């Protein structure tokens, strides 16, 4: 560890800090700035100078919070997120425990197969499942007795795409953590007559708890920002509106209806919600991973 005074560390960190300033700090500041402003049209709105940008304080936030469409989007995404998180993380945990089980066969093949969807872009995953959801292409709709792209099933169909894409990565994180647990612990439990199931429930899962919390919070942040899957599935069905998720509404406000200020305020609200949820995560990471810092 170098303790001498030197310019070297600052020089070495210049690229990262510069990129941070330009592509993180500046855009965040600009979003907050925009969220406090609005275009004011004077007169008939014709001619130069009739449109001015003015400071409006928290008006855009009041509008964002009072926007029924946005709330409907939040509710949809909440239902979707609960579904995705429960199934995806549940499966990831079960698969990780199974990979780590004493007498499993073909573990290497299964690990690679289940992790494979990680290498598939969300757009491609949505396309593949979207086509499979079409009754004329695959028997899935007959199998479940309901058209996957219909109003009643669309949330489940979308959740399936996310679960398919996300389970493998979370499984790998949990499995990596499981592998770090000392085998002696299991040996002692086995001598005491514990079954593999009891070892999983009483030893592995409690030790795994911090890792489970970590992947949960990461998944929450990713899930409430859902954009790619509904956007890609939209051309295949008329059950997904252009404001299905809050993120889609931001996109529409900014680029379709051209209301940058509303989009900025909504973006800040989403960031705030993510940030609140992330604080728990940071605490966990600080205690467990940054211990050597």
């Amino acid at each position, binding site marked *: *560890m*170098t303790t001498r*005074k*030197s310019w*070297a*560390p*600052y020089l*070495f*960190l210049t690229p*990262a800090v510069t*990129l*941070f300033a330009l*592509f993180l700090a*500046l*855009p*965040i500041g*600009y*979003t907050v700035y925009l969220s406090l402003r609005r275009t004011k049209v004077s007169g008939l709105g014709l001619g130069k100078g009739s449109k001015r940008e003015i400071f409006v304080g928290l008006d855009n936030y009041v509008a964002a919070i009072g926007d029924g469409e946005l709330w409907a989007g939040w509710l949809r995404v909440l239902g979707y997120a609960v579904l995705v998180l429960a199934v995806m993380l549940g499966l990831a945990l079960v698969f990780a*425990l*199974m990979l780590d089980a*004493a*007498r*499993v066969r*073909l573990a290497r*093949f299964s690990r690679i*197969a*289940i*992790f*494979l969807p990680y*290498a*598939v872009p*969300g*757009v*491609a995953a949505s*396309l*593949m499942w979207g*086509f499979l959801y079409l009754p004329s*292409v695959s028997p899935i709709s007959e199998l479940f007795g309901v058209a996957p792209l219909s109003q009643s099933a669309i949330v489940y169909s979308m959740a399936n795409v996310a679960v*398919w894409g996300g389970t493998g990565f979370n499984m790998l994180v949990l499995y*990596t*953590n499981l592998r*770090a647990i000392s085998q002696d612990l299991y040996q002692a439990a086995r001598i005491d*007559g514990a*079954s*593999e*199931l009891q070892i999983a429930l009483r030893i592995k899962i409690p030790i795994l708890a911090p890792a489970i919390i970590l992947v949960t919070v990461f998944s929450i*942040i990713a899930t409430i*920002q859902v954009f*790619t899957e509904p*956007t890609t599935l939209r051309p*295949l069905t008329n059950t997904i509106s252009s404001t299905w998720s809050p*993120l889609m509404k*931001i996109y529409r406000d900014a680029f379709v209806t051209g209301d940058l200020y509303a989009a900025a305020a909504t*973006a*800040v609200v*989403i*960031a705030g919600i*993510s940030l609140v949820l992330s604080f728990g995560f940071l605490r966990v990471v600080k205690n467990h*991973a940054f211990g*050597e810092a």
Partner: protein
Amino acid sequence: MARARARAAYAPLGLAPTGILLIGSVYCLFPVSWVVIAATKTSGELFSSSTFSLGTGFFQNLADLAAYREGVFWLWMLNTLLYAGGGALLSTAVSAVSGYTLAKYRFAGRNLIFNILIGGILVPAVVLAIPQYLLFAKVGLADTYWSVLLPQILHPYSIYLARVYAGAAIPDSLLEAGRIDGASHWTLLTRVALPLMGPGMVTIFLFQFVAIWNNFLLPFIMLGDDGKFPLTVGLYTMLAAGANHPSLYNLILIGTFLALIPLIALFLTMQRFWRTDLSSGAVKA
């Protein structure tokens, strides 16, 4: 103890894990294997033949895709390689140098800089993509390669991983020895630190490569000219244009199939580098 082991050997659960994992594997391989088969079907076969029977139209689909808008698909493929390859390379370099510096130097503001950089993990992409677009537009760089490449170089989680890896893989004694021999900071970085961080850098490169390859939101917002699109945005626009023209479905499906090949190849050949934990300091096979 022998009895306990014998019981574990015959425990009914021994079969259950294998069975559950195989069911999971089938679920995960199902859409990918279907798209491989669907890519061989003609437009008619897609809707008439049974889901998992091979079609006869693979080469026709390939030719049609190559002809689609004067071969723009190949351009998307090249663009994606450029964004993912260039972006991941730059990202790995920045992460490795930053991680090494934060792990091995003590200096005023070290923890502050680290915490600020890491805080970037928590910022949702959406808060960034739209203002990034507006700012790029202000300097006339919206709808350019730079607008997709530059914002993806800084990756806070990679800096965190690089720091953990550098901490574990580079012995302080080696740096101290180099310093006593009069090596400069630059020499220590390029001759001692970075070579030792090699395996960790491969892992960071791979995760970044996949992240950029799979990114949809940023290029979707930044780009308007379809000659600069990556595959994700290109395939999306094909679908958006072709949703009402089932004759385009074949092109979309073979395009999806082709888009998966490079990543899956990378994925299967680099198995030992796909790790989520770099703290042990060495990559095990």
